[in-house]
C-alpha cells in the first residue's frame, strides 16, 4: 500500500462520484439538456465565483464559502445559479433587450454540517427564461420541468406548487418580519403557529388561516378551502393567479402530477409569483424546484420578468434507478492485436457500438 489512506480522502461534504453512477448521472443531465434545446434554450457557462458583494443581503450568509484572492478581493463561491445567471444576462439585456432562454449545469457550494448526509458541493442543472411575462410562461415552465423529469426517468415525481405572493400577503407587514413564524409555517407546525400568532398580535382571521395553512396541501379543492377564510385583496389576487395557473395546466392535460401547497413558505421572499418544488417517494429530500422571480433583476437596476428552475442531479439520479440508461455489452478487442485490433475498433465505433480494448499491448 503506497502511503496512508487518509492522504487520499477529501473533506466531508465534497462530491466524488465515479463509475456507472457518474455516467448515469451525466446521462440524466444530457437528457435534460436535450429537453432544454428542444424548447429553444442555449447553454450558458457561468463563473464559479463572484465578488462577495453579489451575494450580500440574500440570507444564508453563514452558509457561503468566502475567499480572498491575492489582491485582497473578497470573493464568494456560487451558492446558487439564478443570481449569477441573472447578472450575466443583465449585461446581455443591456446590449439587446429581448427574451432569453438559457440553460446551465454546474456545481454550487453551500456549507452543510456533517452528520446529516448533506453535501457542501452539489451539482445542478437548470434554466432561466428571461423576459417571460404572464401565466402561459408559468405553465410552460411547469410543463417543461415535467418533461425534464420524464426524460430523466422520474415519471412518478410530484410537482408541488405554491405562491410566494400569497404567503406574503397573508402574513402582512407584521408577520413578514417574524422569522420564527416563517419557521413554524415551514415545519407545518399548527400549535406553534397559533402560539406565535397570538404572541405577535396577529388578528383572529389571519391567525385562523395561518393555523390551517399546513393542511392546505392537495388538489384544486384547496383553493375552495382557502376561500373559506377572510383574505386580504392581495392574497385573493395571488390565489386567483395560482388557480388560473392550475386551470391552464389542467386544460393542457398536464395537471395530473401537480399538487398545490398554499402553506409553502420556503424562499417565498425570492419568488414573486408561483413557486414549485419537486419530490419523489424514493428520495427524502426535494429533487429540485423553481418559480417566478420578477424582482430578481431589480438589484441590477432592471425590470425583467423571469421564470426558472433547477434540479439537483444527485437526488434526481437517486430517484431514477431505471431510466433507459444502459451501458450496453461492449465487444472485447485485445490490445495485443495491434493494427488488426485497431481496425476492428474503428469498424465497431463506425457502427456506433461500444468497445472494450484491453490486455497488454
Amino acid at each position, binding site marked *: 500500500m503506497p502511503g496512508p489512506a487518509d492522504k487520499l480522502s477529501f473533506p466531508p461534504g465534497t462530491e466524488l462520484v465515479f463509475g456507472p453512477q457518474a455516467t448515469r448521472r451525466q446521462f440524466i443531465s444530457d437528457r435534460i439538456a436535450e429537453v432544454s434545446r428542444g424548447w429553444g434554450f442555449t447553454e450558458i457557462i457561468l463563473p464559479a465565483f463572484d465578488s462577495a458583494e453579489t451575494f450580500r443581503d440574500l440570507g444564508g450568509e453563514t452558509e457561503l464559502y468566502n475567499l480572498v484572492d491575492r489582491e485582497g478581493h473578497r470573493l464568494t463561491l456560487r451558492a446558487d445559479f439564478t443570481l449569477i445567471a441573472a447578472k450575466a444576462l443583465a449585461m446581455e439585456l443591456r446590449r439587446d433587450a429581448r427574451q432569453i432562454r438559457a440553460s446551465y449545469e454546474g456545481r454550487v457550494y453551500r456549507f452543510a454540517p456533517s452528520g*446529516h*448526509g448533506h453535501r457542501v458541493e452539489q451539482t445542478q442543472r437548470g434554466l432561466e427564461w428571461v423576459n417571460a411575462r404572464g401565466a402561459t410562461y408559468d405553465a410552460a415552465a411547469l410543463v417543461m420541468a415535467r418533461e425534464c423529469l420524464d426524460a430523466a426517468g422520474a415519471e412518478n415525481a*410530484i410537482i*408541488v406548487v405554491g405562491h410566494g405572493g400569497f404567503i406574503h400577503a397573508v402574513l402582512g407587514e407584521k408577520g413578514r418580519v417574524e422569522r420564527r413564524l416563517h419557521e413554524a409555517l415551514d*415545519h*407545518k*407546525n*399548527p*400549535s*406553534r403557529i397559533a402560539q406565535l400568532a397570538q404572541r405577535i398580535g396577529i388578528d383572529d382571521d389571519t391567525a385562523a388561516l395561518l393555523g390551517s395553512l*399546513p*393542511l392546505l*396541501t*392537495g388538489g384544486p379543492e384547496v383553493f375552495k378551502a382557502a376561500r373559506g377564510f377572510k383574505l386580504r385583496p392581495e392574497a385573493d389576487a395571488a390565489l386567483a393567479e395560482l388557480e388560473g395557473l392550475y386551470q391552464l395546466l389542467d386544460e393542457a392535460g398536464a395537471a395530473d402530477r401537480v*399538487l398545490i*401547497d398554499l402553506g409553502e413558505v420556503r424562499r417565498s421572499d425570492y419568488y414573486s409569483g408561483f413557486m414549485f418544488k419537486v*419530490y*419523489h*417517494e*424514493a*428520495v*427524502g*429530500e*426535494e429533487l429540485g424546484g423553481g418559480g417566478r422571480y420578477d424582482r430578481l433583476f431589480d438589484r441590477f437596476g432592471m425590470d425583467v420578468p423571469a421564470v426558472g428552475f433547477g434540479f439537483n442531479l444527485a437526488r434526481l439520479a437517486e430517484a431514477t434507478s431505471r431510466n433507459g440508461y444502459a451501458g450496453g455489452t461492449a465487444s472485447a478487442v485485445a490490445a495485443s492485436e495491434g493494427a488488426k485490433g485497431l481496425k476492428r475498433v474503428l469498424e465497431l465505433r463506425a457502427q456506433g457500438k461500444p468497445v472494450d480494448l484491453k490486455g497488454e499491448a
Partner: protein
Amino acid sequence: MLRMALPTGRMLKQATPFLEAAGYAPAEPLSDTRKLTVPSKCGRVEYLLVKPVDAPLYVEQGVAEVGVCGKDVLMEVGADLLEPLDLGFARCRMVVAGRPEIERKLDNLLSPVRVASKFPRVAQHYFFKKGTPCTVFKLSGSVEIGAVLGLSHYIVDIVETGATLRENGLVVHEEIAECSARLAVNRAAWYAKLAEVRELLNNLKQAVEGGKP
C-alpha cells in the same frame, strides 16, 4: 404502508398506549421485541425501533415516512422535517439550571459562562441568541453533576417534575422551551403519500383530543 420511526426506551412506553388508542396497535409488544421492525395489527404502519436521538434522521432522510420524536431531540438534531402534530405525551421543559446562589447572571457577559449539557446545540444556540458568550461541554448523562461539582456554571437539560434538580440542590434559572412528543413527517412523504399521511394524522389527532389514552 407507512414506516414510523419509534424511539425505544421511556418514550416507547408512553407511545404504545397512545398508538393503540389511535387504532395502530403493534402486532406484538414493542418493548419486549428484539426485532427492528414490527408491523401494526391493521397493517397500515410498520414500526421502526430506533434510538430516540436517531429518530429525526430516519424521518428526514425518508427511511421512515413518519416518526415520533421528542421536541428536545428535534431541537438538538435540527433535522429538516415537518412537525404537524403535538402528540401531547412525554411533556417536559428544556431549562437552564444551576445552583441557586450562582453569581454569573445570564445577562450579556464579556467572559464565557460554562454550560454542561446533553443538548450542546440547544445550549450553544440559546446563549448565542442572548448574546452571552459560553463554553459548552457535552455530557452523556448525569448532567446535574456538572453544576453541582463546578464543571460548569449552568446546565441545560430537560426536567419533568424538577425532583432530580431539587435532590441535587439545583434550581431552574430560565426556561428555553416546552417539550413533548411530536409527529414528524418526511417532506417528500407529505406530498408523495398525501392520503396515507393525512389519514394517520387525523387518527392521531383524534387520539390526542380524546385525552390521555
